[in-house]
């Protein structure tokens, strides 16, 4: 059956290619892959246009809507010192003026057609998306292809968006305690790798961008051979391929620079920063040097994270929040980056408890997972939680498209979320103890502590 479907897709691309205006506008069918597992698995088809644009298509007729994601293989890791935040600034500029489309028209057209749209930037990637009533699919193709090739980057647009981004930075970093701790963590943990700087950029860099900076960046990274389009929804294959071919086939590929990222050297001693903020209680954030998303250990460490931090039955929540009543908030996360990142742990202390007390209690528990295997019941619960979470992420067309695009962009595998789910099932208690011993090393740790400023009304009483 799978072979017949593949043959039919090749026949379809052959047929569409009969009317291609150039080699850049010719489709190649690159294969099908199952998305999901068991009876609920769906098929994701992959196509590549002659100019390098990759398209993943999942036909899902469960609702009369479609989601259209464009992932660019550019994030803050591709920036240079002094120009940090440029990738994120584009997340704003791309909604502005392009040839044939005045400022404000992009959003107006989308809203007039009932679309939802947004964008996101992180260290390894940038994506833009539209979710539309299915019959309006063509609008997304038109608008996205226009702004991929014909964005206008002049002084007024750049000045206005710089100001908006500066305000965004005040909101998510300067006046936000967790945001400022997180920024400090990566700034301290990474010294030479671009994960050192925040995706939103340093404030002085944001305010110094020129239109010329933006044009250079745009010409370099915004091109079909640096992009992946994911289409998920109630659409027809031929219509999708024809429209995308007609809109993007005329856009030339760019010459992408060879990435010049310096790997972060091993961390040989703990780094500590203490800050003060107007808050009632201490905060603690730890970052252990962790594996890259594509590393097999990432899967094992993600299961360990569920055992330690996943839900109210997890070891650390039970110890630190419920039994010892040291913390109000507690979470752990293994960074999902292309290069090795951090295993982050965050705790907000209760009033009267210090970050140092939390650290001592946390270290005691981490020592236990390094010396003793977790129980089979704990392991089983962690796997069940991960399965539930994966299924919940697939409820909407946009949820599916985001998963496909993320894993295709970072790992080159659109179905990696389900391959990871299968891999979680194979993880053993021995695996968990091994990764705990490998990664939970105090010498490879960065510690950020926030202490309250003594200026609050209650403190003054």
């Amino acid at each position, binding site marked *: 059956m799978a072979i017949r479907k593949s043959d039919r897709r090749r026949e379809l691309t052959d047929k569409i290619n009969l009317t291609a205006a150039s080699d850049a506008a010719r489709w190649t069918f690159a294969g099908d892959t199952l998305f999901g597992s068991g009876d609920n698995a769906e098929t994701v088809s992959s196509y590549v246009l002659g100019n390098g644009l990759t398209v993943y298509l999942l036909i899902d007729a469960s609702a009369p809507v479609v989601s259209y994601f464009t992932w660019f293989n550019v994030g803050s890791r591709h920036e240079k010192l002094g120009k940090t935040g440029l990738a994120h600034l584009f997340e704003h500029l791309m909604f502005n003026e392009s040839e044939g489309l005045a400022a404000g028209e992009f959003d107006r057209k989308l809203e007039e*057609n009932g679309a939802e749209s947004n964008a996101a930037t992180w260290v390894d990637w940038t994506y833009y998306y539209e979710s539309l009533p299915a019959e309006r699919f063509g609008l997304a193709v038109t608008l996205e292809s226009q702004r991929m090739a014909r964005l206008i980057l002049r002084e007024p647009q750049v000045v206005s968006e710089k100001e908006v981004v500066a305000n965004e930075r005040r909101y998510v970093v300067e006046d936000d305690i967790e945001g400022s701790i997180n920024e400090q963590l990566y700034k301290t943990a990474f010294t030479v790798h671009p994960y050192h700087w925040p995706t939103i950029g340093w404030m002085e860099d944001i305010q110094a961008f020129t239109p010329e900076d933006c044009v250079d960046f745009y010409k370099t990274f915004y091109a079909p051979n640096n992009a992946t389009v994911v289409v998920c929804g109630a659409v027809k294959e031929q219509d999708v391929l024809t429209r995308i071919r007609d809109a993007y086939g005329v856009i030339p590929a760019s010459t992408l620079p060879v990435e010049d990222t310096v790997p972060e050297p091993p961390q040989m001693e703990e780094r500590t920063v203490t800050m003060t903020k107007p808050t009632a209680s201490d905060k603690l954030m730890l970052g252990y040097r962790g594996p890259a998303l594509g590393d097999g250990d990432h899967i094992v460490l993600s299961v360990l994270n569920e055992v330690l931090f996943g839900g109210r039955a997890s070891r650390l929540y039970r110890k630190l929040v419920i039994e010892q009543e040291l913390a109000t908030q507690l979470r752990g996360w293994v960074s999902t980056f292309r290069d090795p990142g951090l295993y982050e742990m965050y705790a907000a202390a209760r009033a009267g408890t210090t970050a140092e007390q939390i650290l001592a209690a946390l270290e005691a528990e981490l020592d236990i997972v390094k010396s003793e295997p977790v129980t089979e019941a704990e392991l089983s619960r962690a796997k069940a*939680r991960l399965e539930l979470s994966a299924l919940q992420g697939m409820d909407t067309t946009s949820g599916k498209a985001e998963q496909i695009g993320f894993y295709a962009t970072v790992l080159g595998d659109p179905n990696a979320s389900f391959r990871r789910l299968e891999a979680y099932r194979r993880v053993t208690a021995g695996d968990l103890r091994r990764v705990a011993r490998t990664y939970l090393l105090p010498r490879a740790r960065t510690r950020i502590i926030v202490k309250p400023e003594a200026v609050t009304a209650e403190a003054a009483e």
Partner: protein
Amino acid sequence: MSKPVRETTRLTLAGGIPGYLEPSHALPLVSFTLALRSGAAHEPEDRGGVARLTARMFRRGAAGMTSREIEEAVDALGGEIAVDVGGSTMAFHGTVIRRNLDPFVDLVTRLLGSPTFDETELGRLRRESLAELAEVRDNDRSLAQIAFRRALFAGHPFSRGSSGTISSIPKLGVGDLREFYAKHWVRGNAVLGFSGDLDESLATSVGNKLLAALPEGPRVADDLAEPTVKTGRHLIFVDKPDRTQTQIIIGSLGTSAHDEDHVPLAVANAIFGGTFTSRLMREIRSKRGWSYGASARLSVDRRRQSFSMWTFPAATDAAACIAVEVDLLDKWVTAGITPKELGFVKKYLGRSYAFDIDTASKRLHQALDVDLLGLPADYYSNYVSHVEAVTREGANAAVAKRISLTDQLYVVVGTAADLLPAIQASIPNLESTEVVPFDRD
């Protein structure tokens, strides 16, 4: 225009209790909601937080199971439970991987039907709740929302949040929770909803199991008064050190879903501040770059709720931003909307309705809202037609009638020493100013 796909299935449950089902077999997941027709606004006045504490105690001991045993059982089944407590309603939500539905439902019936309300666990929850209340002070947006709600609805139960206060939580004892449970978590006060991988027969069976777990009891009387508004323009300044940015909420009373001009007002509000290209976004973000976001909102509850505008400009732009918002509001109320704006927003609201009903869970919660909040029966199912019927004259009359220019509340979170005089000067005819420390109870 997008039309509703179909009506939500009504279930016939024991005792005539309403039930709703939105099946979807796309994923092996089942979700259910056991909702109640009362909430934090129905707490005794001196027992702020009792509704939420009662609901949170379900997972902290029931039918011979300890808190730990409950949490482990939920996780082992690939399940998730949550409670939410609003002003007029409360709900217990459960989601589980389909293969474990039966044991999950058995577990939930134990939690809902036989909560232990253990003294030691309650003491722990009280301390946890107090720590969470202190933690909220780190979030400037939450500080603005709390100050706005308290001042706008002063003297009305809507002024209370569901979390209680640092002074009310320590007073809550096991007796208070048992009393609240006995009155509110009863069959006659319940509405049930299901979505996901189950059919009508299974949903009915599960629904009856859940209902059987609840004690017998009548629906709680809907005796909330209509809120009234304080006359004049008043400023609440929440003073917090070291702010580079402000959080600003401006508003007044808004709409009731039963107003004849409810939909026209909602349509006009979408033009004013409900979309990315609304007047507020265009003037404050796009033209001036002052704030990352700017929006206006009409909340809906069983009684008239708030109209509010929200922005968060840099401290240096705050006063100028308020002046622009005041001017925009004045123009909206006095000059109204244009035919072009109305035509545009009708297309937006009609076509984007597809995303209000694109998942079973969203469709279910529309049906539950209609029942719980007493919304007109066709509030959602004929939403697109209601929007289509709005005229410019009707929308402008609704704005002029419902949005007051003279009675307005201004809430600013910022550093008073740097900003207060400039903020006061930006508000014409300001009658009073109250400066409150950010860490007050």
